[in-house]
């Protein structure tokens, strides 16, 4: 598969170099919100939407900054745009589904400091993706993030009923689980296949 093709970029972001399990981005919500499948799914959706908005805005901003040759303001502009995008999503969720808003609680505004969103913007800039590639990248990242969250939620829900040593309850267990998931996802390496 051509490494610049949209399919490869999507698969790369979702599976081969999964944002959470391979790139270590977005760990705070991953460990904090993944206790129940319902919240995990909603968090994943909200994050994917913010990713899309941020990715598009980052592309536009980068283009403007490069034209004006003031790239050193890039980081400040990116984080400002992400904060605004999160604000927007927060207002939208509050209006459309107050129950969801309450369920997500503090984690919705915390998407601002979610390394995954900023990491997404930075990676797409470093790799110099064009607009369509950036879209594929952000959708793939969102899907991968949601997938990791859902897997973790499923595992943790099952674990609630199991007898676990008291020493490992909580974050330690989640991290070990994450390690196993990460190990499993390493199996996706080479998914893109060799190509000329």
């Amino acid at each position: 598969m051509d490494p610049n093709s949209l399919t490869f970029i999507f698969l790369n972001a979702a599976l081969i170099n999964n944002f959470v399990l391979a790139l270590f981005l977005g760990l705070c919500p991953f460990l904090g919100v993944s206790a129940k499948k319902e919240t995990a799914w909603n968090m994943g959706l909200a994050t994917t939407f913010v990713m899309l908005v941020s990715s598009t805005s980052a592309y536009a901003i980068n283009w403007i900054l490069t034209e004006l040759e003031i790239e050193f303001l890039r980081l400040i502009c990116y984080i400002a745009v992400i904060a605004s995008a999160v604000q927007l999503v927060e207002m939208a969720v509050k209006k459309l589904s107050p129950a969801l808003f309450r369920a997500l609680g503090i984690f919705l505004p915390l998407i601002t400091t979610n390394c995954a969103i900023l990491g997404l913007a930075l990676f797409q800039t470093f790799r110099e993706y064009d607009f369509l590639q950036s879209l594929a990248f952000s959708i793939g990242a969102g899907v991968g993030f949601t997938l990791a969250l859902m897997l973790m939620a499923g595992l943790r829900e099952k674990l609630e009923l199991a007898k676990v040593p008291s020493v490992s309850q909580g974050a330690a267990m989640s991290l070990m689980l994450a390690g196993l998931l990460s190990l499993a996802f390493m199996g996706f390496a080479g998914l893109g296949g060799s190509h000329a």
Partner: protein
Amino acid sequence: MSQPGQTNAEAQAHTPPPTPGIKMLLTLGGISMLAGLLVVLAFQYTAPIIAENQRIAIEKAVFQVVPGAMERRDFFLDAQGLKTATEGDEASGERIYAAYDANGQLKGIALKAEATGYQDVIRILYGYDPACECVTGIRVLKMAETPGLGDKIAFDPDFLANFNALDAALNAARDALANSIVAVKHGNKTQPWQIDAISGATISSAAIGRMINASGQRMFPLIQKNLAQLKGGQ
């Protein structure tokens, strides 16, 4: 937050007056200007140092893949022709690094190449000697291969020895390589244009083969066509 027994008016008097919008704007504006000033200062101060670091890093790599080189000059090369670093830019062709010895003789050209390896993109700088029509060395610039397995492509001496004189002769029409450069299974190398892959790191080794082949098919005929200008150094 009114206490029991308080009237509404008293409770209202306890809440602070809302911040006027203009004050918020001024604060944000002021902070932004201060931020911008600090960043610009830092940028101006470090830009020359960073440029120097990058120059040193590139030259170290170029002089490693082109043995005997002392001086480097950048060119931009594509099917339309050769341009010097001042005449052209990234849009007018691929950047190549021509390396000369102390007497100004062209020792070789260093080019970048990249391809997807096992985990992520592998990027290398490799040297090409137009006189012997062969590759003279590679240096891995960036990779994310499995440590202990795929990452051996960067320092395994037997693997790197493949590139000391890798045959890259052009065909009779001088428009492509006579034989495609390719990686073969460990121990099966029979021809000078083949690369002996590292056993256990076939995919990473194959990626090196693919990227040099792709780059060579494209660039070596162009280099030979513009050889006189490259030798002249202008």
